[in-house]
């Protein structure tokens, strides 16, 4: 059946077709939908699907499954691979049994990531093959192939889709009965010294990996995922070549098509060129690379992020090149390294048209096929940065801490999640953000440095979400207690992994297998670690939240404050607030909170500005009531206690 599938769904479908036994990972844009899709197509629980606590846990679980002969898919975003690096680097040494496919979603741009790291280099670093899809349908085919490659060579295989592949849809033919296909037969775990990594084993394994990669390079030279074509014009000698890789293949083809059309419109043709499309960047298919380079004076390499294919081609043309012919007439390779293509960011056909036109010596054609776009007056396009949702409990938590900290010098160390948006005006409660789990530990570094400089007045507050707490902040908190760092850790517990679209985590007790575990209490974890003060508070109980934050800030040791209120994505909106005639138009509510539901508007006769509530956006959190000095914001929940409103929120769960 032909279906419109997102790249991530296509990868999931392919894994199910490959009989995958276990799917695990940690949520991270743009990788999240892979594990979710497998969970949605698992009616009989025949696949074990889990959101692991973090990527390292997922990778180690995968190792155990593979040792037992099971097929396993692990998913994460590119920075998740950093967390999983320890088990991953070792796993290629020990070697796999059942197929291990590690899907690492890269994010050129970056569109929603901390870094632009290129996971093809991770593959090189770990001595494992990597497949680099250009489209969702190719990701589908590559996933199936990856299990085969992994099992044939006893190595994990990285599939490295980029955002446009993960979050792009395409029409793809897939089996109808995706939920009832048979599982891969697992042999079971047989004890062997081969599973114990040891210096002597690693030395032999290093050699084995090198041989495997040589073999795989040979196999890749005839892989369906690579293509070598020639566009030859009788009157034009062939001495130019273009190599493209991964996602950039689509942009390259489109740019060439436009240049060809522009040439045809002028009654000419493009000069002769060779085109290499690479879907298997490592180990580089050298035989194919040689066929590409042969006789070329110049080659242009087009690939987003790092110059992986470019360096492979350079190695082949350089002084150590094995091929005598290439050495005697070396090809000049252009790309990232000589500044022909951009160092960073996402590519596009628009961007490539002039680059390719210049390389082919037809720059005049680029003018023709880059249409002039109509100039839109810049001041008419409103800046629209991402903001915390209306009703977001993080806004209330930040506001409470800021109020408690008034008059004190406080540095706020943030973390990765929706709450990173606390850095923006007007909240400005995120002074640093580094990586998952770093809020709690960077705060300790700042505190230590301040202390060494004789400053024990500045207070240090870390923020971390509930899912991130379990993923990578618990060790940081243990470090604070053990090494006696004075700090406050605010855990923003909204009962979900919000940024990636509401995934469960250990604190929720909900699993992807549909079973319920005992929710792990963040408060009890903090107490067990020996923190000096541990309290939980509802951030919308504003008075209590400010008081709790004041106590935490005056604690001489490690204080943990758990702000508990559910993410707005988890419940239906409560009745919106309204503005009464007492509004003086001072704008304090708008300036204090940065709530998307609040704005200033000219009133009926256009004489004065007044606060305005967008009833479609207001979630009824009532936080703005605290900001109005004139009591001009009215809530349908007037007279209810914070506990009653909290119960109302939790009771309005989405179906």
């Amino acid at each position: 059946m032909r279906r419109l599938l997102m790249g991530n769904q296509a990868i999931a479908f392919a894994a199910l077709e490959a009989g995958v036994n276990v799917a695990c990972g940690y949520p991270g844009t743009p990788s999240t939908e892979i594990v979710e899709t497998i969970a949605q197509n698992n009616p009989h629980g025949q696949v074990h699907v889990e959101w692991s606590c973090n990527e390292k846990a997922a990778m180690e679980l995968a190792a155990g499954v593979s040792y037992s002969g099971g097929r396993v898919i692990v998913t994460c975003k590119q920075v998740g691979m950093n967390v999983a690096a320890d088990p991953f680097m070792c796993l290629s040494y020990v070697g796999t049994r059942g197929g291990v496919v590690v899907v690492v979603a890269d994010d050129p741009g970056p569109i929603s990531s901390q870094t632009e790291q290129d996971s093809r280099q991770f593959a090189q670093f770990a001595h494992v093959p990597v497949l680099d899809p250009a489209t969702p349908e190719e990701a589908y085919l590559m996933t199936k192939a990856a299990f085969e490659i992994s099992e044939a060579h006893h190595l994990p295989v990285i599939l490295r889709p980029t955002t446009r592949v993960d979050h792009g849809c395409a029409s793809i033919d897939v089996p109808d009965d995706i939920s009832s296909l048979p599982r891969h037969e697992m042999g079971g775990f047989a004890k062997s010294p081969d599973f114990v990594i040891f210096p002597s084993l690693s030395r032999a394994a290093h050699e084995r990996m090198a041989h495997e990669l040589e073999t795989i390079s040979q196999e890749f030279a005839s892989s369906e995922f690579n293509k070598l074509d020639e566009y030859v014009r009788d009157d034009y000698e062939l001495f130019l070549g273009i190599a493209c890789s991964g996602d950039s293949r689509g942009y390259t083809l489109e740019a060439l098509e436009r240049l060809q059309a522009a040439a045809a419109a002028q009654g000419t043709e493009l000069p002769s060129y060779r085109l290499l499309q690479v879907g298997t960047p490592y180990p580089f298919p050298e035989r194919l690379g040689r066929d590409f380079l042969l006789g070329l004076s110049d080659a242009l390499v087009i690939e987003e992020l790092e110059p992986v294919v470019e360096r492979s081609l350079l190695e082949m043309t350089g002084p150590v090149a094995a091929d005598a012919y290439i050495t005697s007439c070396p090809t000049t390779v252009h790309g990232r390294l000589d500044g022909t293509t951009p160092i960073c960011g996402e590519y596009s056909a628009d961007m490539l048209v002039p680059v390719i036109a210049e390389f082919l010596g037809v720059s005049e054609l680029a003018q023709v096929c880059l249409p002039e776009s109509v100039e839109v007056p810049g001041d008419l396009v409103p800046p629209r940065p991402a903001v915390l949702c209306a009703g977001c409990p993080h806004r209330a938590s930040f506001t409470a801490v800021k109020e408690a900290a008034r008059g004190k010098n406080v540095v706020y160390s943030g973390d990765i999640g929706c709450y990173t948006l606390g850095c923006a005006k007007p909240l400005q409660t995120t002074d640093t953000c580094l990586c998952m789990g770093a809020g709690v530990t960077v705060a300790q570094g700042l505190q230590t440095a301040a202390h060494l400089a004789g400053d024990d007045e500045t207070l240090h507050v870390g923020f971390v979400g509930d899912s991130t707490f379990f993923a990578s902040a618990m060790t940081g908190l243990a470090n604070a207690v053990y090494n006696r760092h004075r700090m406050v850790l605010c855990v923003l517990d909204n009962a979900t992994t919000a940024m990636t679209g509401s995934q469960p985590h250990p604190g929720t007790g909900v699993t992807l297998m549909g079973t319920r575990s005992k929710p792990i209490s963040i408060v009890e974890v903090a107490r067990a670690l020996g923190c000096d003060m541990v309290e939980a508070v509802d951030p919308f109980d504003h008075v209590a939240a400010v008081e709790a934050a004041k106590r935490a800030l005056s604690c001489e040791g490690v204080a943990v404050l758990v702000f508990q209120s559910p993410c707005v994505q988890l419940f239906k909106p409560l009745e919106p607030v309204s503005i009464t005639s007492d509004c003086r138009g001072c704008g304090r509510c708008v300036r204090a909170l940065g709530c998307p539901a609040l704005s200033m508007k000219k009133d009926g006769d256009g004489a004065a500005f007044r606060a305005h509530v967008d009833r479609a956006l207001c979630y009824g959190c009532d936080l703005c009531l605290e900001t109005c000095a004139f009591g001009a914001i009215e809530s349908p929940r007037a007279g209810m206690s914070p506990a009653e409103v909290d119960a109302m929120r939790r009771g309005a769960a989405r179906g």
Partner: protein
Amino acid sequence: MDNSRFSEPFNCLVVGVGGQGVVLASRLVAAACMKAGAFVRTAETIGMSQRGGSVASHVRAASDDAALPSSLIETAGADLVLSFEPGEALRAYGRLKPSGALVCANRAVVPASSSNYDGSAQLDWLRATVEPQRLAIVDTSVLEQEGLSPKCLNVMLLGAAIGLGALPFDSEALLAAMKELMRPNFVPMNEKALELGTKLAIQR
């Protein structure tokens, strides 16, 4: 199936603010194009920018996959821009073909940082720039007047695009796509929004 109407690729850019239903609208266009026999590619904005940021979904449809190497619509490449918001229509305007159609909701979503933006200057610019036969500005207050949820805006915009003759499929194909992608209890009110949008564009 005869997919000759896709011999030239059809490119539709759906833009708006995170949370407005941009992704669903683009999926509806994609599904309806598939039903009309096209090969479809999309690129969607999912993740951080969904939190009140500006979002864009690209939908491209052609007779076969070879005609669509990439999923992104380039400068002046869109046959149709479907905008949920006036300011976002202007942000996307550079991707509209000189002959392309533009459908835009008239209700502004005010960014949290802005004080004097209400979308009126943007709508004026559009009326002054785009010829009337390829422009439909959709009055969202009609939804409220008809007792429909603001969530029906996406289908109302699509209805207006059909009324403009800017989509390569008819209401029937869109309705079939709606039945496939929406919860059954949401279909009747959206069907009404579809009719409203189509009528509105025809009566302009």
